[in-house]
């Protein structure tokens, strides 16, 4: 019971970061991200995913979220639900009013959209989540050298794309 309470507290402490990572793993789909995060929390709390202490809790949890997002995406494609929703969202996507920060964030998202999936993931983990490249590599299950390459190339490409948008002074 205490262990369960501790786990819950740990999950809650980094909930916002976890949600942001889930959104990234779900390619910006917040509904999917919420579902994926819910499934990840369930896995952790009912012991299907067990923290062994071989890395930081957050690094481990992000790995769980990433795997869960993959399973989720596969199930959605198989059932055809994702395709259906993709079309629905294209039809109804609202143009939300944006403040200056929101606008900057949207520019950043647009620029990130031009990067490869791996580059986006590495940059998110390092810049957004403040993970080391080594920890990012562990979350993504890739060698550190590969993560470093994705980091460098992704960063260069992101700066270029932000420059093209006139977002970099």
């Amino acid at each position, binding site marked *: 019971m205490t262990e369960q309470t501790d786990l819950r507290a740990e*999950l*809650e402490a980094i*909930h*916002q*970061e976890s*949600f*942001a990572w889930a*959104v990234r793993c779900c390619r910006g789909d*917040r*509904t999917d991200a*919420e*579902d994926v*995060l*819910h499934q990840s*929390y369930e896995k952790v709390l009912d012991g299907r995913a067990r923290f062994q202490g071989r890395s930081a809790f957050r690094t481990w949890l992000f790995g769980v979220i990433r795997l869960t997002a993959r399973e989720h995406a596969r199930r959605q494609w198989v059932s055809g639900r994702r395709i259906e929703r993709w079309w629905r969202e294209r039809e109804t996507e609202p143009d939300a009013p944006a403040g200056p*920060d*929101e606008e*900057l*964030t949207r520019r*950043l*998202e647009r620029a990130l959209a031009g990067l490869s999936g791996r580059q986006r993931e590495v*940059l*998110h983990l*390092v*810049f*957004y989540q*403040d*993970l*080391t*490249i080594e920890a990012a590599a562990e979350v993504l299950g890739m060698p550190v050298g590969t993560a470093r390459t994705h980091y460098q190339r992704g*960063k260069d490409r*992101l*700066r270029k794309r*932000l420059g093209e948008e006139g977002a*970099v002074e």
Partner: protein
Amino acid sequence: MSKSWHDDRELGARFAKARAVEARRAPSFERVLRGPPERRRSLWAPALALTATVVAVGFGIRQAGSRPASPFEVTVGGLGGPTDFLLRTSEPLAFELPDIRLDAEGLEPDLDGRIGDTVGRNRL
């Protein structure tokens, strides 16, 4: 969150703003833990499916007492009682189910007048 590992302050500042925006929009921990409404509602779907299956099976058992009325039907179970199932196909069973022994003579001595001449052979 106290220490940054990246080597680009400007990009770091942009990501930090994005993080602040995202933090305002993130659903609460409690809500995520409960599960999205879509998922909670979806519990009804399996319950309904289970109910429909039970009803269908019940209906099938009720049908079991029926005798096959055409070569497109066959009873499964072989006891001729209420646990037999009546199957229907779009083609005469002689062509659809090769395992069925069409010539029942000598093989199914218990066939009786309860089942029609043609379809009686289609008994599994």
